[in-house]
């Protein structure tokens, strides 16, 4: 770790050309990845990411530099090289660092680095067997194990000095079902901000069987009808639709520049009044939680939308300057190789009042998207697309039959207004979210919701 003296010297060097704020982010991360295909471990990789990122602001101008040589002379050189992008006289002449007390609310019990590889492989085998034995149509099972032990140190010219440790563990299971010439896959990827004790908290075999069940269901399904009609989106990873279609548009990264459909709409009705949505980085041990964000701010529970009214954005320090707003604990980055920016943590639509059964039985005709795949959005226009990983047709209040190959497209702002039922069965799922500050773990979530109409893409015309 860096000495306080070195940190101060580097920050002052970074500010030597007129910057008004400088920050150091140092990272020392241990990673493990094990890949198993058809019950055989094919690859094991362990590694250490190590480096420092230096960020300088002058007003809303931002400079970033990073290196993995942390010797004094190199850090000073990099700080000066970054500072060279600005060319004024120094404003900040002294810095007094004070260590911040970070409340560690994500306890880690079994440090992954102290767990034997064979135990990790043991969990993978359990998942493989459960998925493979699920059905005779399962032709391949791939299981990936991942753990990350990220140690960060953050210091800035306002005097902040903090460190944090983020340990995350994840298992992902991909099952392929084959029927004749056709193949379909099913996926589950449970993960938490915790150590190897994850596997005391979750039933690996249950997740594996679910992945297999999705694959088998889909390989035996007809194609989904295309057209514009009602869609019921299930809980858990179904929340990816809110994450993509609305969450990204509520990040200061796009709001500050007026590049979001939600810019300038605080206090306005942007969603059906059934919708309350939150970004909450403080849920103990959740996949997207952190004790502090990557600028050293405490994470928070931020209400984004309350009863349909837009209440707040997710704000980082730089964009906060543009917007005249305080940071909300959402500043995140994949690693020291990225300048942080406003990102989601655990983002979800809150529980409503309808039971799942009521939603189905009150629906005449709809696509029921039980499991969602990934998706993406253009924050400027709000146009999104999502793949439905497991779909069903609902007819006359009953789930009629499974359908595959559906894609949902539309505009986030329109979908939010068209939510007409919100369930009480709230739950979350895990994803990796990619944006300009890299790929980061994020939870999505919601109860089952019903949307009056969405364009469903597929190969068969609606009948």
């Amino acid at each position, binding site marked *: 770790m860096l000495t306080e003296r070195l940190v101060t010297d580097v920050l002052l060097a970074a500010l030597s050309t007129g910057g008004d704020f400088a920050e150091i982010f140092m990272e020392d991360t241990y*990673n493990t990845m*094990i*890949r198993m*295909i058809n*019950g*055989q*471990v*094919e*690859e*094991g*990789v*362990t*590694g*250490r*990411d*190590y*480096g420092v990122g230096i960020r300088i602001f002058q007003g*809303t*101008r931002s*400079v*970033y*530099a*990073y*290196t*993995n040589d*942390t010797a004094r002379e190199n850090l000073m050189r990099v700080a000066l090289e*970054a500072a060279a992008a600005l060319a004024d006289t120094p404003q900040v002449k002294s810095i007094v660092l004070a260590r911040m007390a970070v409340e560690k609310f994500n306890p880690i019990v079994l440090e992954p680095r102290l767990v034997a*590889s064979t135990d990790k*492989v043991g969990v993978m085998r359990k998942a493989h067997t459960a998925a493979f034995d699920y059905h005779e149509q399962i*032709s*391949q099972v791939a299981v990936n194990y991942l753990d990350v032990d990220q140690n960060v140190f953050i210091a800035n010219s306002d005097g902040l000095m903090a460190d944090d440790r983020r340990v995350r563990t994840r298992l992902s299971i991909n099952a*392929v079902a084959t029927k004749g010439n056709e*193949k*379909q*896959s099913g996926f589950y990827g449970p993960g938490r901000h915790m150590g190897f004790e994850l596997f005391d908290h979750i039933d690996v075999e249950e997740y594996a069987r679910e992945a297999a069940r999705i694959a088998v269901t889909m390989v035996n399904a007809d194609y989904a009808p*295309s*057209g*514009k009609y009602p869609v019921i989106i299930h809980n858990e990873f179904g929340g990816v639709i809110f994450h993509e279609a609305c969450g990204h548009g509520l990040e200061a990264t796009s709001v500050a*520049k*007026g*590049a979001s459909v939600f810019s300038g709409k605080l206090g306005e009705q942007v969603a059906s009044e059934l919708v309350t949505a939150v970004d909450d980085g403080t849920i103990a041990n959740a996949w997207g939680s952190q004790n502090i964000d990557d600028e050293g701010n405490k994470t928070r529970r931020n209400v984004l939308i309350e009863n349909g009214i837009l209440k707040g954005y997710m704000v980082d320090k730089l964009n906060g300057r543009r917007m005249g707003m305080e940071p909300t604990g959402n500043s995140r980055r994949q690693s020291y*190789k990225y300048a942080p920016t406003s990102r989601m943590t655990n983002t979800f639509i809150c529980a409503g009042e309808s039971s799942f059964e009521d939603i189905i039985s009150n629906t005449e005709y709809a696509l029921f998207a039980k499991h969602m795949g*990934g998706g*993406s959005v*253009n924050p*400027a*226009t709000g*146009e999104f*697309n*999502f*793949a439905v990983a497991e779909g069903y047709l609902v007819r006359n209040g009953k789930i009629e039959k499974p359908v595959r190959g559906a*894609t949902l*497209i*539309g505009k986030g702002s329109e979908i939010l207004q068209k939510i007409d039922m919100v369930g009480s069965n709230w739950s979350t799922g895990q994803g990796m979210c990619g944006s300009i500050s890299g790929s980061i773990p994020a939870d999505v979530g919601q109860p089952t919701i019903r949307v009056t109409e969405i*364009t*469903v*893409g*597929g*190969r068969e015309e*609606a009948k």
Partner: protein
Amino acid sequence: MDIREFKDQVFAAGREAGLEEMEVYVSRSKDFSVRIFQEEVDDYTVSLEQGVGFRARYGGKVGYAYVEAVDEDSIKLLVEGAKANAQIIDSDDEIVFFAGSAEYPEVVAFNEELGKVSPEERIEFAKTLETEAFATDSRVALVNWATTGYGETDVYIANTKGLEQSFSRNAAYSFVSAMVKEGETVKTGGRFLFKNDWSQFDAKKQAQEAVQEGVSLLDASTVKSGEYRVLLRYDVVQDLLSTFSSVFSAEAVQKGLSLLGGKLGEQIASPKVTLIDDPLLPNGGASAPFDAEGVATKTKEVIAQGTLTTFLHNLKTAKKDGVESTGNAFRASFKSPVGISPSNFYIKPGEKSYDELVQELGSGLIIIDVQGTHSGANPVSGDFSLGAYGYLVENGKITRAVDQITIAGNFFKLLESVEEIGSDLEFGIPGYGGNVGSPSLIIEKLAIAGN
């Protein structure tokens, strides 16, 4: 510590720990990028980084480890990590450490002149992107991206079999995206460029094309669902080809994850389609004289006039199939194990210009963008269902823009139903699916969902 010295120390420590064979794969890169927002430098990033990927055979199996810091601690991490990881491997696949090819091709991928462009010049370029975008049309509300960057990468591979090769490559990129607004309608138009010749960067042209595209979409609406004859613009074909490029990988074939398995020598595409993998392409984004295992690269036709002629191999898959490696071993970074990827991978262009293709389309749709290839496409089945937009064409003329539609089909059927190939070959951004290039294509029919 010098990297060769570091390698010697790692190999010495490894021998002491009983490792049987060892290899280092080192990449070092220097990058610069600048982004402009409202005439100010909004983001300016410089970086210098390196990473060492290490793999070693122990007890006959191969384990991996990597580090970024080149110091004493790292030597221990590499040796102990790879050794521990070797011990959990079950797979009986034979992994070969390669002593080197008899000769290596000459490949030009480092442009000295490009490296000499100053940061000031690059900042000026990004500013021009923004200014010219605003100047192009009064409906430009915001230029949400005006950025350019430069990077150079050195790759060095050495192993205990005697292999020792290195190679350098550089490239620049620029991206501009404009938000255009008319009434309540908002559209974006963007243009990306990735080349290693600075003279091919024209900020004004790039900005104008981006804005014109955005503006051309302002009158967009959906179309009736049904089957349409479709012109896929070159960049859409690039997206599809890179999404599905794994189907040509021998690894996917051997694992039963490619429907092309068993089809070598068979007609799998329209006779008009020739698909080339050319790692020797001068200044190509994925050009290199050797692959990630140190095997000399070579140019080959993967599909020759519709016939599947080869899969892409690394040493492991080649050994399994009893063939030679095609020089397509690939590591996404020093952190990644050896896999397979195409290099500069492109559909051979035809004779007709884009405008001629539009005429020839007659009535149908032009697709200029697809979204969701990472989720709405299944490389195993070949099925895709993607958000899309573009234009409606009637009697050989574009009549209006189209949005809020999806296109659905199957990659293998798409290859069979290529009716016409344009002359407008362009390459995209090098990535996991290779550095993919394509001209625009007319496809007999695709399912479109609108209303």
